[in-house]
């Protein structure tokens, strides 16, 4: 197993290299002037100062040379400095990633808590009113864009009824003047999480409940489920032990792919709810031509994606005895 993981990691190095080239090329070809970004917005700099800055940041060199320099710095752990936040990029990612994580993790857990039992019930009662209801519900979840559902929630729950905060992660007053206790801080963050988590969980629930349902429907019609019934097992045991363990196989693959996205952020959603996560940072970075930050975020996502694939393959072999991973 360990040998397999090491081998997979080694083979992903060339893939990652190609990805960095594409990312660097794309970021550099974004419209706009990078020098202005370095000098700060609204700066009226003379041509001389601009030229000095260009030389200072190495922007006068040919693109391949810039790439090699950037790659060299990145590999040594120096991700450069964010021009917009005036902080080292590593530090930016390190702090914002956890904001993204708590939001996504909460949404994923909530989604799974509902999606698994509901998906199973749907499969057991296939074709019933209940099944059709949840099918329509989850199709809504898949097809309604997050920004739209987010805005609807902001409008009705946030503005019309004024039940809960609609943006940000903390109350401005409290955050500036200090929380009286850690519990107050946690409570404040939880309150701000409700709306964005609902939106995220809705979409994730929809995807997972479809998966659980379809995978269970397929399994329930298998011969070995009939065998399990013929043994005299209780229907619950048949469904939750014999059927679900088989239905879990495709689910684990999906879940493995999902884990890294917990860190990489939901760009649009974070923008809609002004949630200070990686996705929001990335969008702001793109808007302000913050190339160091954008490159780092994208490379970070790419690494997560590769790890996610590896994770799902490893998990796959854990739940399905027919799949053996070895060197």
């Amino acid at each position, binding site marked *: 197993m360990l040998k397999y993981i090491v081998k997979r990691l080694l083979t992903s190095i060339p893939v990652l290299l190609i990805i960095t080239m594409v990312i660097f090329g794309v970021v550099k070809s974004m419209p706009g002037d990078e020098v202005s970004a370095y000098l700060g917005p609204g700066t009226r700099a003379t041509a001389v100062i601009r030229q000095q800055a260009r030389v200072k940041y190495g922007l006068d060199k040919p693109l391949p040379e810039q790439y090699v320099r950037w790659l060299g710095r990145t590999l040594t752990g120096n991700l450069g400095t964010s021009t917009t936040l005036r902080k080292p990029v590593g530090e930016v990612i390190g702090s914002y990633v956890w904001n993204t994580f708590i939001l996504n993790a909460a949404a994923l857990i909530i989604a799974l808590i509902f999606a698994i039992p509901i998906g199973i019930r749907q499969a057991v009662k296939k074709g019933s009113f209940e099944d059709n209801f949840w099918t329509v519900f989850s199709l809504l979840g898949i097809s309604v864009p997050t920004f739209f559902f987010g805005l609807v929630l902001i409008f009705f729950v946030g503005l019309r009824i004024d039940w809960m905060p609609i943006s940000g992660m903390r109350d401005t007053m409290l955050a500036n003047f200090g929380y009286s206790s850690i519990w107050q801080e946690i409570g404040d963050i939880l309150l701000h999480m409700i709306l964005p988590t609902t939106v995220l969980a809705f979409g994730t629930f929809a995807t997972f409940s479809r998966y659980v349902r379809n995978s269970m429907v397929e399994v329930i019609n*298998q*011969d070995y489920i009939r065998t399990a019934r013929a043994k*005299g*097992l209780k229907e619950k045991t048949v469904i939750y032990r014999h059927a679900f363990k088989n239905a879990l196989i495709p689910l684990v693959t999906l879940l493995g792919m999902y884990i890294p996205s917990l860190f990489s952020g939901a760009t649009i959603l974070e923008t809609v709810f002004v949630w200070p996560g990686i996705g929001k940072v990335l969008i702001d970075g793109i808007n302000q031509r913050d190339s160091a930050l954008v490159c780092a975020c994208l490379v970070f996502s790419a690494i997560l994606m590769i790890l996610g694939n590896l994770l799902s393959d490893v998990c796959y072999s854990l739940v399905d005895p027919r799949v053996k991973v070895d060197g």
Partner: protein
Amino acid sequence: MSEEIKNTAEPKANNKILEVDNLRVYFHTKKGDSKAVDGNHFDMYENQTLAIVGESGCGKSVTAMSILGLVSEPGEIMPGSKILYTGNGKNVDLAKASDAEIQDIRGNEISMIFQEPMTSLNPVFTVGEQIMENIRIHEDISDEEAKARTIKLLGQVGISRPDEVFNNYPFQMSGGMNQRVMIAMALSCSPKLLIADEPTTALDVTIQAQILMLMNQLKNELGTSIMLITHDLGVVAQVADWVNVMYAGKVVETADVQTLFKNPKHPYTIGLMSSMPSLATEGSRLNVIEGTVPNPVYLPKGCYFADRCKHCMQKCLESQPPVVEFENGHKAACFLYEEAEQKGE
């Protein structure tokens, strides 16, 4: 409703363990009720092998499924059906029993072997776990005892190195091995009745013979009754005591195995017999019964076999044939023998 065949002969003076009476299983489809089993009667006795023979779709498997209550939507065991299980001092009508009652009997007193051993075992559990599970739900014994018994059972069904096979997954073994595992599982609680639904169809011929011998041997050792569902008359001749021939959801002929092979009465049975390939008739074309089984949704008014029968008469198309009894409980549902019976009386 016409008369229906009922086998009443006791092959040996054994106790009756199963009494199936007027069993009707309909599948409610959009086009109407598909009468998969329509008025089935038979009894089973201890230590007897009853073969149910017929071509695909004649209701053999559905009959077996209904005994264990495994008929699922849109199928329904129709009201008025009776499946009385009287083994082990019990007296339970399986057609009406509650889930708990049936679950107690399944795998314990009546167990089943299915047609496809490769797909009938759960791929994510080891064969040992699957057999042990059957023992653990029906008997209050420790894991170690259950494991020891499982390994012993695996040995009994002719698996070498049973303690290694215990930890194998089904995909690591051949079809024949898996079928042995299924048999071991079915026998793990020493059932009174073993239902084998085409247990050898998916296996090659040498393995078939071994599996049949194994079932016969276990029947003799444990006194288990076997209901063997098959379309293979060769298999029937080898192992059965008594035979029910089914056609389009009904039993058309019933007899002990020797009588049936020597003296088949119903034109369908005669057709089946002559459709068997034989080395003695080398060079000639294989006999077939022309036509196909009627659609169980639109069954004719008269005899269901009429349109394929060489002896079809006008009355065959108009009403259901009477049941004619010959010696030793041999019966056939056919107009051909009606007059002979009347003369005899």
